[in-house]
């Protein structure tokens, strides 16, 4: 029998109580993963009713036996028809009346069924649970990040003239798999030369030559949790062009300033302003074309952005990336990224 993390259940009960609810509907595959791990592959394969009376699950019949065996505490029913209607019926049978669903995570037809059953649309109800990580989650995220730091050390020996971007990407991914990752958490970015000037470069067949900028942006899934780092550096025996050295220095400084000055109580926008302010002061403001960071956890991008648009406070144990970048189109770019979490005493790197 597998256990569901007690602190997650406590957090759920807390939210139900706060909203005066008997239960809430969980549909999103990553929200389900939060409670029971990697079981389902797609949205819509299962619906869970998490209530003060326990968990009720309706899933494709295929899952009934394995889920019942792993989680006997969840009442699981196989259903290959209309699962939302089935879970409404379960709620009725159990006498559960005040139930919420997240309209932002439902398909129209399912949302209508819940609406007709009198369930309440509360946007972001489960997302708000996932944003602050439990100690167990943080521990897994540290292991996930640890693989990346190892990978970065490992890959340097292969950076030789003639090696292609896709070969390096493949070696990074092989290393991550060997260290227990289940796969990359997004397409690995390896950019040699001009490719570094695109924030979303698609790894290609460009070959490494001496005296080129190199950018590596990669991450993995480890026990379901994501990690993400970016490193940019000059490869060669001649010193980097002055302009490249300057943008690299500026993004590294911006990154370090955020690490030092981001405090508990600040909003995503306030933390973003630390990095943006520094890059603007250096004269590269308009070349910093994205947010400073994004939330991270079960998904490579989650809520809790470090961006000008996020006026919400970054709470304790929120996990996010800090990745200032400067992109000089047609020439080169630089980005420096690590993931951090919020503590009472400021932010700490996840490593």
């Amino acid at each position, binding site marked *: 029998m597998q256990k569901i993390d007690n602190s997650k259940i406590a957090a759920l009960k807390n939210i139900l109580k706060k909203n005066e609810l008997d239960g809430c509907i969980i549909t999103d595959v990553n929200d389900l993963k939060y409670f029971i791990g990697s079981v389902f592959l797609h949205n819509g394969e299962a619906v869970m009713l998490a209530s003060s009376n326990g968990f009720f699950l309706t899933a494709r019949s295929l899952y009934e036996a394995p889920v019942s*065996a792993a989680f006997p505490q969840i009442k699981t029913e196989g259903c290959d028809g209309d699962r939302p209607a089935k879970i409404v019926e379960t709620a009725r049978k159990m006498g559960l009346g005040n139930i919420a669903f997240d309209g932002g995570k439902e398909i*129209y037809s399912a949302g*209508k069924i819940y609406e007709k059953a009198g369930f309440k649309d509360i946007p972001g109800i489960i997302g708000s649970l996932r944003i602050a990580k439990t100690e167990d989650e943080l521990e897994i995220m540290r292991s996930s990040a640890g693989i990346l730091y190892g990978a970065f050390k490992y890959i340097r020996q292969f950076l030789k003239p003639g090696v292609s971007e896709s070969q390096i990407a493949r070696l990074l991914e092989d290393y991550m798999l060997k260290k227990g990752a289940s*796969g990359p958490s997004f397409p690995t970015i390896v950019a040699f030369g001009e490719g570094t000037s695109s924030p979303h470069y698609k790894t290609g067949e460009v070959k490494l030559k001496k005296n080129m900028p190199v950018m590596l942006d990669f991450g993995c899934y480890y026990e379901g949790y994501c990690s993400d780092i970016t490193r940019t550096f000059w490869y060669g025996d001649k010193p980097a062009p002055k302009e490249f050295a300057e943008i690299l220095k500026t993004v590294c400084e911006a990154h370090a300033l955020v690490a030092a000055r981001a405090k508990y109580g600040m909003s995503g926008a306030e933390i973003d302003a630390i990095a943006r302010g520094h890059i603007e002061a250096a004269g590269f403001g308009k070349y910093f074309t994205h947010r400073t960071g994004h939330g991270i956890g079960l998904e490579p991008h989650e809520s809790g952005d470090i961006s000008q648009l996020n006026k919400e406070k970054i709470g304790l144990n929120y996990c996010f990336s800090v990745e200032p970048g400067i992109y000089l189109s047609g020439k080169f770019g630089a980005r420096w990224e690590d993931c951090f979490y919020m503590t009472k005493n400021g932010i700490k790197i996840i490593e």
Partner: protein
Amino acid sequence: MKSSGEKLKKFQEILKKRGIGAFVVMDLASAVYLSDYRFKAQGDAYLLITPSRAFCFTKELYAITLRRAAPFLECINSLNPSDIVAKVKELKIKSAAFDPGLIEYLPGNMFKAAGFKELSGLISAAREVKLPDETAKIRKACHISAKAYEIFRKKLKTGMTEIAAARMLEDIMYSLGATGIAFETIMAFGPDGANPHHESGERKLKAEDAVLMDYGCSYHGYCSDITRTFWHGKKPSAEFKRIFKIVKAAHDLGIKSARAAMTGGALDAVCRGYMGSLAKHFIHSTGHGLGVQIHEPPWIRANSLSNLGCGSIFTIEPGIYFEGKLGIRWENTVLLTKRGAEILTK
């Protein structure tokens, strides 16, 4: 690659015939299908299709590429559903529609308030029957995965972990020209095969062991899907031999019986019925369609009442599972023609 826009034209013909003034598409797979452009994530682009025009609501970043790759799309730099409603008003379209099973709840409410109609199944019906170019790509993807099986068998060694074997299999597919992997490869040794959705792990292959591998590649955006179960070694257990024979025969019967205009439910019943009392260990559906998505209509399952179309492509994959002990599945991807099912994974 520049798109011909053939699939969009086909869909616009359907709209014309049905008298639908505009149709909203917000799910990733349908947007990829109609635009013939591989957007990466849900929310990258939404489409508004009329019988004569096609609008793509997206980020400027994509609009630049799309002007070249899909010039038949008129790009609008917005991802706000209210701009879709505004466009419909601007064009004075009366009969706009959306699919309630493919649109999310919040934008769906907005469309409903604007008077759009709910209309299910229109896109899936279009996607189900493949165009020649789509069939050619799937055929290639299928051929690569079938060929990979032969090479893999020669390279598989006792002591390998599931993860290492899965990686080796994927490497072989890439070397044969695959452009991607269709889904996470399921490599299951011994009792791991009993879980139809096993996640490849650290289990090592024994000298005498059952191997179940369910995998597929993609070729320029189109998927293949194949499962092979075999005995590694020389002395398959009596139970392995007995169950394998039944599963393989159920599969062969499914292939032989598939006909255009048969329902998915009837084909499912053919395979399930053959197994007799063992059918209770056949805990999933007989098959699924595939194309730009690894799972898409038609559905070969008990409650599927829609007819299988000529030109549709789907899997036939019966399996029998004894929890904690053994699992056997045999799967091929087939093209349904007037003459019956043609196996593509060969």
